């Protein structure tokens, strides 16, 4: 580690509690270009703690881009300037010596702020509880090819299922809309045979819940697809709209 460090000015959102006013605090740091963004925050926190100051609250878990826990808005972009990575996969070599970096929490009515950079994303869990599951018993592992799924369909379902539920789509959307997330979840089931039984009830229930929770509608700006760490395609949103229209025409639900 004899590499030259880069000097950065960080403006990080600090807010003690949901109700109290927040503001940006400035931190100057010389950091290794090999450090990840979260490791840099760890360094700052170590320093703060050594001086008995309150560390910056932020979330992370796997730190390898698979769990969806991390998520910061870096210079106005969820998960930072690079495409198809989560915040934990962003490295400081992507910044230049002397850069100023603004770090803000995800902002949406449906994601109330908890502390500093942590927001409560459980609204996404509420949507999953409304219909993002299969309740028919699929039994034990079936024989290979007992249920035939064409390879391209299986791949499309897998692509949709690669959503890690991070909420960056909501954070990037000018309307704080959860359409990309919900459409990925609707699609992964709608494409596969096991998802057919509850197909129409599912999309109706999930869209209803999404609307109730205060997410915005989709304006097709496609910011979500650009910022999604998994590159979930807005074609899923088109599919969800189709599913929704079909559900409205075909399902028996007069109550929803």
């Amino acid at each position, binding site marked *: 580690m004899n590499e030259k460090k880069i000097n950065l000015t960080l403006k990080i959102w600090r807010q003690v509690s949901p109700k109290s006013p927040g503001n940006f605090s400035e931190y100057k740091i010389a950091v290794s270009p090999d450090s990840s963004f979260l490791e840099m925050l760890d360094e700052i926190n170590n320093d703060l703690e050594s001086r008995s100051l309150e560390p910056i609250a932020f979330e992370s878990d796997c730190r390898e881009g698979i769990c969806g826990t991390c998520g910061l808005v870096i210079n106005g*972009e969820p998960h930072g300037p690079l495409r198809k990575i989560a915040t934990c996969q962003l490295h400081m070599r992507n910044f230049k010596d002397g850069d100023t970096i603004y770090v803000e929490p995800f902002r949406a009515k449906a994601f109330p702020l908890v502390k500093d950079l942590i927001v409560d994303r459980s609204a996404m869990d509420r949507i999953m509880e409304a219909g993002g599951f299969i309740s028919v018993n699929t039994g034990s592992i079936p024989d290979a090819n007992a249920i035939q799924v064409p390879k391209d369909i299986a791949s499309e379902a897998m692509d949709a299922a690669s959503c890690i539920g991070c909420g960056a789509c909501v954070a990037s959307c*000018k309307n704080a*809309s959860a359409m990309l997330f919900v459409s990925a979840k609707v699609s992964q089931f709608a494409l596969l045979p096991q998802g057919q039984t509850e197909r129409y009830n599912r999309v109706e229930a999930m869209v209803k819940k999404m*609307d109730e929770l205060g997410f*915005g509608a989709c304006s*097709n700006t496609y910011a979500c697809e650009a910022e999604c760490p998994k590159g979930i395609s807005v074609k899923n949103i088109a599919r969800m*709209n189709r599913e929704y*229209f079909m559900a*409205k025409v075909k399902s028996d639900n007069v109550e929803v």
Partner: protein
Amino acid sequence: MGWLSRALNSSIGKKFVMALTGICLILFLVIHLINNLTLFAGPELFNSVVKGLDGIKPLIRVIEVILALIFIFHIYEGVRLWWENKKARPVNYTVNGSSKNSDIFSRTMIWTGSIVFIFLVIHLRTLWVTFNFDPTVHEGHRYYDAVVSAFQSPVYSLFYVVAVVILGFHLNHGFQSAFQTFGWNHKKYFPFIQKLGMIYSTLTALAFASIPIYFLFFFGGK
């Protein structure tokens, strides 16, 4: 029918209304443009086309009411979506990164739409009201002269050009957006729809803009 009204008032339902009315307006613009381009052929053709439409007035009135309703629904839902979508993010970002992940046309639909609305009101006042209710224009079938006199004003002509260019911006996003909303995004034909939308919006803006430019500059305002 409670289910239907609930469906149309859901986030997807509201967008469906936007897209359906938007496509109707796109089709209307095609017809309106073809009609207007007859101006280039001179007074005889243009006056006889408008006179012909005057001959089927009851039908035209019905179409006008339908068109007005389409506009009203499009504007109502557009403003409602804009307002509700704003409320979905009560605290804004300090650094706005939207220019890095989306194009400006998609983010300014409410503003381009609002300018088109202001234009629409003025446009109805200057041309539609004159065509229908000005005795010399209407009874004498001197529609062409009315167009000439309207575009004699450089201010009005300039406003017209700016407004149709902004309409082009609205359509540049709106065309493909409507297909996405309908769920017609498929890798086989969506790239074609996107290109068609760009061609349609560019041609529409240029063709509409050519009319005031022609009357103001080449026709010498005479």
